[in-house]
């Protein structure tokens, strides 16, 4: 081990037996500098959680892909969806992702009211999204095309509904964070939580991109 350190010293691209000296990153948390800062630990932990959430969604996506043609004599994708609503939902969620980013910028500057205001805008846009989706679901159920109708509709309601549920939980979280920022200020751990929230919110938008493409656009076109 120590014998190879000497070589590694000279060659930064040396592969394999790297000792402390030759290691390419002095970043904390990579072993050299000891434990990383709390902010990085929290952010990274939440990042892994988001990845696990992606994997969970992938199970629902896979199921949707497998069940999408099994309509049991009921309607298929191209007969059901109202593209105007989908476009509106997409716009609302995308904009809310943007305002969520602005919120985190204001939080970095520790300005209370702008932060709260962007949180509120984010929340309202998120609420609009959930409302539109809920209206679409209610409409489908009312015309007899609820999730019990066919394998396809089961998979559709579950995949889209799971995303909608995530957004709803996000709204509950956002409301809680608004109260917390208001009452407790920009305490460090609260900032971490808001950071996690914004990661969560952006990640939901990524999932939505997959949903509107696979379920709605390709579904309606195909």
């Amino acid at each position, binding site marked *: 081990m120590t014998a190879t350190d000497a070589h590694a010293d000279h060659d930064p691209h040396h592969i394999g037996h790297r000792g402390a000296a030759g290691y390419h990153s002095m970043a904390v948390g*990579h072993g050299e500098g000891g434990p990383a800062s*709390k902010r990085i630990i929290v952010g990274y932990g939440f990042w892994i959680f988001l*990845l696990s959430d992606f994997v969970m969604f992938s199970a629902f996506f*896979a199921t949707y892909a497998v069940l999408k043609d099994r309509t049991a004599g009921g309607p298929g994708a191209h007969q059901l969806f109202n593209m105007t609503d989908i476009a509106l939902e997409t716009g609302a969620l995308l904009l809310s992702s943007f305002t969520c980013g602005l919120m985190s*910028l204001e939080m970095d500057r520790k300005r209370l009211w702008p932060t709260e205001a962007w949180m509120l805008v984010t929340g309202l846009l998120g609420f609009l999204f959930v409302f539109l989706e809920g209206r679409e679901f209610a409409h489908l159920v009312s015309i007899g095309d609820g999730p019990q109708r066919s394998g396809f509709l089961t998979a559709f309601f579950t995949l889209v509904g799971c995303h909608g549920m995530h957004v709803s939980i996000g709204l509950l979280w956002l409301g809680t964070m608004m109260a917390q920022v208001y009452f407790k200020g920009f305490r460090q751990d609260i900032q971490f939580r808001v950071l996690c929230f914004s990661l969560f919110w952006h990640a939901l938008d*990524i999932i939505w991109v*997959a949903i509107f493409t696979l379920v709605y656009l*390709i579904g309606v076109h195909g």
Partner: protein
Amino acid sequence: MTDHHSEDIAHRVEGGDVAPGDVIHGEFTAGWRTYVLGLAIAIGLTIASFWVAQTHLIYGPAIDMALATLAVAQMGIHLIFFLHITTGPDNTNNVLALAFGILVVFLVIFGSIWIMIHMNQSMMPPTGMPAPQSGGM
């Protein structure tokens, strides 16, 4: 507490480790610019997606592929401009975790589709009649 925070900033500036979501140059205007740029590209890609789905200008069978490409591009834009995942050395762990996640997501989705297509084929009646589309009894 402010000590901790400035220490975090210091890590970011000195090319230490970064948390996902951290704007690397934590300045306000630069951050604002990043989000506006990200939003603009994302809007462009979204409009393109909706347009592609309805247009007749593109060769029909290619539309699905075009939509998939646009979606992947848009996800990348979100990752870079909103989640600030980059390929910098300070981001190694974040990107490695992402790569692992993407690998598993792909295995789950495409593995399932592949397996289930073959299973459905094996379920077909021996006469070679197509399986009922409904999947009912």
